[in-house]
């Protein structure tokens, strides 16, 4: 069985304990944070194991790459601590079970991975993808399963992720452009953390979009809009790709508003919170987030994760902000019509 590579000494000697100190949902000073983290490392009881809302933020706050969130998740599972109601956990585990009903495009050495998010079958259109489509995969067989860290269920991931990676290997692909942060994070963060080999080069689609837009540079007409970016929880697993948001916005001539809840301080879309904890937390987070977008004059709310879009699109639209996926925004910049419009 794959085991988490975790260095206790890195935590013992950490000068900041940012993993817990920066947490937006727990309130800990550095000494208490260290104490609780050491309890967790030793397998003891810690209120953190009960109260963590699974925003994944600590994975990003830890600059030493020591995977505090994966450890918390491991410990929760060991202790049988449920993060979500059982029925919700079961539902998600069932959803991801391979069914042999996946879709394959015309597979080449370089492919697009839609994971198991059907929205991408609709969203990935136009010249931005000319040089790779229709080389794509979609379905549970290519679903990274990383979402189960929300549900304190790494055993499912350890069981399924190697099989998923093997499915990519069987296709003989060299490069996989991941349309979802979770897939990219699974191959670049989670798999290495558990010693699971990845036999291809994962590419984040932000990087792909950025390069493609540069190739199409002559056709870009600056959009001259003010946008707020909704950063998803899964991008905490690959924070090194976050700079592409700003880079892309600059390239297509939009103003990424400097708002309170951005970058490391980004707020969750609330979808997972709603399922796990009910109304209050989800509503509070969504309200603060959207108020912040409105307060900073955003005309568009730009989404990365389709799940965030599902959770927030109608709500931001009701506040006068147009919801749009980043792919559609880029397509608009080269004169194409968005595929997914929410009114």
């Amino acid at each position, binding site marked *: 069985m794959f085991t988490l590579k975790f260095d206790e000494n890195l935590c013992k000697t950490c000068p900041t304990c940012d993993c817990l100190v920066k947490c937006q949902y727990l309130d800990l000073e550095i000494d208490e944070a260290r104490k609780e983290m050491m309890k967790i490392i030793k397998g003891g009881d810690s209120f953190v194991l009960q109260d963590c809302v699974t925003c994944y933020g600590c994975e990003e706050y830890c600059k030493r790459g020591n995977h505090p969130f994966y450890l918390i998740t491991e410990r929760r599972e060991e202790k049988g601590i*449920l993060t*979500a*109601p*059982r*029925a*919700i956990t*079961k*539902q998600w585990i*069932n*959803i991801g*079970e391979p*069914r042999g009903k996946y879709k394959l495009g015309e597979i080449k050495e370089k492919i697009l991975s839609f994971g198991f998010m059907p929205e991408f079958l609709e969203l990935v259109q136009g010249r931005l993808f000319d040089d790779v489509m229709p080389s794509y995969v979609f379905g549970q067989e290519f679903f990274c399963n990383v979402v189960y860290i929300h549900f304190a269920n790494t055993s499912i991931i350890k069981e399924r992720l190697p099989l998923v990676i093997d499915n990519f290997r069987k296709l003989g692909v060299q490069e996989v452009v991941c349309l979802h942060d979770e897939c990219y994070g699974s191959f670049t963060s989670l798999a290495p953390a558990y010693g699971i080999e990845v036999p291809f080069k994962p590419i984040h689609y932000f990087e792909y979009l950025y390069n493609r837009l540069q190739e199409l540079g002559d056709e870009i007409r600056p959009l001259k809009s003010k946008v707020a970016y909704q950063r998803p929880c899964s991008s905490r697993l690959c924070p090194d790709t976050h700079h592409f948001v700003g880079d892309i916005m600059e390239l297509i001539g939009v103003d990424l508003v400097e708002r309170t809840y951005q970058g490391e301080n980004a707020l969750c879309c609330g*979808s997972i919170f*709603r*399922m*796990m*904890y*009910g*109304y209050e937390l989800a*509503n509070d987070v969504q309200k603060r987030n959207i108020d912040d977008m409105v307060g900073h004059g955003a005309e568009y709310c730009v989404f990365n994760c389709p*799940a965030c879009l*599902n*959770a927030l699109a*109608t709500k931001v639209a*009701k506040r006068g902000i147009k919801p749009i996926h980043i792919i559609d925004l880029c397509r608009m910049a080269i004169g194409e019509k968005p595929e997914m419009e929410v009114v």
Partner: protein
Amino acid sequence: MKDVTLSLAEVVGEKYVSSQPEEAYFYARDPGLMPAHKPDYVVLPKTVEEIQRIVRLANKEKIPIVPMGAGMSLSGLVIPLKGGIVIDMKRMNKIIEVNEKARYVIVEGGTSHGLLKAYLEKRYPRLRHSIPDSPATATIAANVMIHGQGRLSQQYGFNSDMVAGLEIVLPSGDICKIGSCSLSPEWFSKGAPLPDLSGLFLGWFGATGIISKVALKLYPKKRMRDVEIFVTDREDLVPDIIYELTHTEMVEDINIFAQPLPMIFKDNHHIVICVTGDTDEELEFKKKMIFDALDRFIKSKDGGFMSVAPAMKETFLEMPQKSASTFADVTKGGGFEYSGPIIVVERYPECARKLEELATRYALKYNVTARVIGRGHSMMFAFSFTFNRADRDMMDRTKEALHEASEYALASGGVFWKPTIDEQRMAIERMDPNTRNLIKMIKKDLDPNGIMNPGNWEVNVDEI
């Protein structure tokens, strides 16, 4: 005796009567398991006077009559067990009057739910009725005749509880008005403050008369609707969850479903909660109340609100909901039937377990569906199976499973909804003898020649 077809043609016109085998084939069956019984004649009247003349003719000639809406009951209630005349009401589909302020509508006996919905949406957008999740062609009169349920049944009871008046063609051919309309031009009540005679006709499947007009209560239509789905893996908790939900008085409609496929639904019970509001604030307030009401189940990790993608929301919010029809053909081969007893909500867990056990034992595809009626006073629990009509063995297994489900439901205190002939027989055998005698007396007095949908609600079991 004059040729009956000719006599009927004199009443409705040649075009609207048939004794041809093509018509007889279709009117002999429905999508359920009841064996086919061919009618001798099919007739489509246009007016109540035409119905009167048909009934008088039938009485004279002692020919059975089966009044028919769209034939959607699935339990064979308009299959002419003893042949005779099927009166298809589809030409009598006028919307006669809407009283907006008193919130009722009067329609002819063959008017469909789909037509009324479209009419209200166009002309009275602030009013609605309790639309059932049957195909839109299902008729209002037939639906109240079978005590159907719809999107407002959680709040207001059976659709038959929402009847505000009836015009009935009695088995004698006389026309009788039931409710306030019997002495007032206004159709606001089916009974109170008068003796409630509607019970002589509602639930009788046409065995005591033919509904030529029905007034239905209309209700406020809010501008917005939304849906939440609460899931739990413990069927034992469903009654408590429903109790808390109904206690909020914030919910339009509550349906429960459980099924093994697709995988997203496996192992869980899904409580589909519809809410309405005129403003975002109203809608959000109601949702908060609902979330708060179920908070203890979330905290104990026994249940939670699932994430519902926009496409799935659309499916659950559509009226009528088509998913039942989709399930109906999941086995392929077009066979679908369910036994849908009305039970107290506490019986949900054991019924759900029983259905799963039956499906496993008889190797059938199944689906649990239940609808809460009247703020939790009862629920309709559907033991649903699909089958392939080309597979005789599967049909036999379905029949056996349904019979067992019916026996179980009755033993558990349930009462059959739109019972098949088999279930009617079981119900009559089990019924209080004095009640049974009262039924017999009513039928005999109203229909001494026994021409009205014979075989249904027959107290003499050997006549079934």
